């Protein structure tokens, strides 16, 4: 009985598929954390950015209207994976942006890869998206934690901050971030003079900050994230130590939430800032007009850039077939003007120059959105892993 039902449903589904694949709208999916802890650096503003890209593209491609749908995966891998599969099967989604928890993004990317659907990891920062879990149709727009850690570490050493003290949360991810940063510090000629490893959810970071200060290090590298990071930044402000801080994982929305008074002078790497050139300012001003002044993060910009590039490739290829579109995307230059020296590697890794940002002091800031000063550019080709070194099985096979 159940089997018959399933078969019938499968038949119906296959019968229905060609109908929307040929004439119906081209559907794009924004799969993100819409309300949870990551909704600030992705979430509703990612949806806005994607809708803006579609609008700027003209609203239709290959003579078919473009429709954007969004789904909230709640940072649960099972939910995200099921949603992705369901929307691919029932709505004929041809591409999706992925944000929020990386575990969810990776699960959805795997489902999409099996179904021949293009994925744009615009808000996922785990190296696995373009590494060991890449698919033939996956693109990784967001920088990974590795580039964020190495970017800030290398660039700050070059600016004279050559002695570091690491403040590291005691779990695998934290240790990995600290190791990435340490490698970059040493490559750039600096040294790590000490480290405090603290348990997750530490209420008082004063002890770690004092140890860092006592070590005489010029820079305190923060490999922690979320509330631990906020606590460290808040308390460093109390001790007057803010200008020593370099953070591995902090986004524009975190800085805006902490406020410039507390976050001033912190340095971090980012792939995007809204106030760089005419294109970024246009994007930034439009999205801030819609969202009540929330500064767009690198994830939001990546979603706009990724979807725009996808649509350009669809128009150029004359089809939504994932194989053809993917090939075009890797071959065409990015046209949004958000990134410098941008290109796409064969594992789907989007490479561009990264930026070293320093948070403005309240005096330097000319308005609520004026949060960063860009103090250096970090060349992308020396920062990102090559496709061959990424661990992506597709490229490893190609190079062997």
């Amino acid at each position, binding site marked *: 009985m159940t089997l018959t039902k399933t078969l019938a449903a499968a038949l119906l589904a296959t019968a229905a598929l060609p109908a929307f694949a040929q004439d119906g709208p081209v559907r794009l999916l924004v799969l993100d954390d819409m309300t949870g802890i990551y909704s600030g650096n992705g979430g509703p503003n990612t949806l806005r950015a994607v809708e803006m890209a579609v609008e700027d593209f003209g609203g239709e491609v290959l003579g078919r209207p473009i429709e954007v749908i969004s789904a909230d995966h709640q940072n649960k891998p099972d939910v995200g994976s099921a949603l992705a599969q369901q929307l691919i099967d029932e709505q004929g989604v041809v591409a999706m942006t992925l944000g929020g928890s990386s575990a969810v993004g990776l699960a959805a990317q795997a489902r999409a890869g099996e179904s021949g659907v293009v994925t744009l990891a615009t808000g996922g920062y785990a190296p696995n998206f373009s590494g060991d879990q890449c698919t033939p149709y996956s693109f990784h727009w967001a920088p990974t934690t590795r580039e964020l850690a190495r970017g800030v570490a290398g660039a700050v050493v070059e600016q004279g901050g050559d002695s570091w003290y690491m403040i590291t949360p005691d779990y695998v991810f934290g240790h990995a971030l600290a190791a990435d940063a340490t490698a970059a510090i040493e490559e750039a000629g600096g040294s790590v003079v000490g480290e405090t*490893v603290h348990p997750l959810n530490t209420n008082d970071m004063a002890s770690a900050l004092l140890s860092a200060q006592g070590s005489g290090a010029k820079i305190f590298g923060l490999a922690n994230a979320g*509330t631990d990071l906020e606590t460290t930044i*808040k308390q460093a402000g*109390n001790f*007057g130590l803010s200008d020593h801080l370099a953070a591995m994982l902090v986004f524009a929305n975190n800085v805006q939430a902490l406020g410039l008074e507390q976050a001033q002078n912190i340095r971090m790497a980012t792939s995007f800032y809204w106030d760089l050139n005419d294109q970024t300012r246009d994007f930034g001003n439009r999205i801030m007009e819609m969202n009540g002044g929330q500064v767009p993060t690198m994830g939001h910009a990546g979603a706009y850039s990724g979807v725009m590039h996808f649509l350009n490739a669809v128009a150029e290829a004359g089809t939504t077939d994932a194989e053809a579109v993917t090939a075009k995307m890797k071959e065409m230059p990015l046209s949004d003007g958000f990134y410098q020296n941008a290109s796409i590697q064969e594992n789907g890794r989007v490479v561009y120059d990264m930026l070293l940002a320093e948070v403005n002091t309240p005096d330097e800031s000319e308005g609520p959105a004026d949060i960063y000063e860009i103090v250096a550019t970090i060349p992308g080709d020396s920062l990102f892993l090559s496709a061959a070194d990424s661990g992506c099985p597709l490229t490893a096979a190609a190079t062997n």
Partner: protein
Amino acid sequence: MADIFGIPLPVLAGQLLIGLFNGAFYALLSLGLAIIFGLLRIINFAHGALYMMGAFAAFLLGEWFGLPFWILLVAAPLIVAIFAAAIERGLLTHLQGLDPLYGLLLTFGIALIVEGLAQYQFGVAGQNFSPPSALSGASNLGFMIMPHYRAFVIVVSLIVCLATWALIERTKLGALLRAATENRPLVEAFGVNVPLLLTATYAFGAFLAAFAGVMAAPVFQVSPLMGSNIVIVVFAVVVIGGMGSIGGAILTGFLLGLIEGLTKVIYPEASNIVVFVIMAIVLFFRPSGLFGKTA
């Protein structure tokens, strides 16, 4: 330069002051718990939620009315104390004479509801709360830079703890309280309104928790989970000090802050379990706690 555990003495002194600062919160919170347990025989699991409510009441009063910190420091705990009095009158009073487990469950439920509502309303991210401008600077003590606000917290909580201890151990009112704990019918026979005394005690314990919450706001995260993060440690402090011992709660609070501070220098990875290791050891040798009366 003299070293202890391979750490230069000045660095150690700085870390001990940080430990004392954290101990101040443990002392204030465990003091409230000890008073409530001593008189009401209720293991108040809502204590963390009351602490969180103090911080949020201060945050909201500051946002809405722009009240200065000094007024918030009293106004916010008062509001929380009124809330606590209502809880005591409406719910806890019905549990009198029952096993303390019922009180524990009820207060735990209250904590879950209050924290859930706060999370629904404010999310999990921390809210902005700056120290008062008069205390926003920091002084160089030679061996460390001490933010004025942290020094203020240590001094104020010491004063509040000692005053509370004196109130209970050295005044007529305190004597009544202690007498009511020992033999309630007798105290009632003398014409003392014991139910009122109990409500006031619960409200006072809540006041202390909320007071600690307001003092924590400029330094720690003002978030709905701030209470549940600290309350477990505070319970361990109370158990180590001995349930119901006022002086014991204060002393143990500061002492464990110091020990935790030391751990953060010697082996930071263990800093969040050291309190529980000590609790296990103390319970093994002195089941009623360091300052508890053997029942």
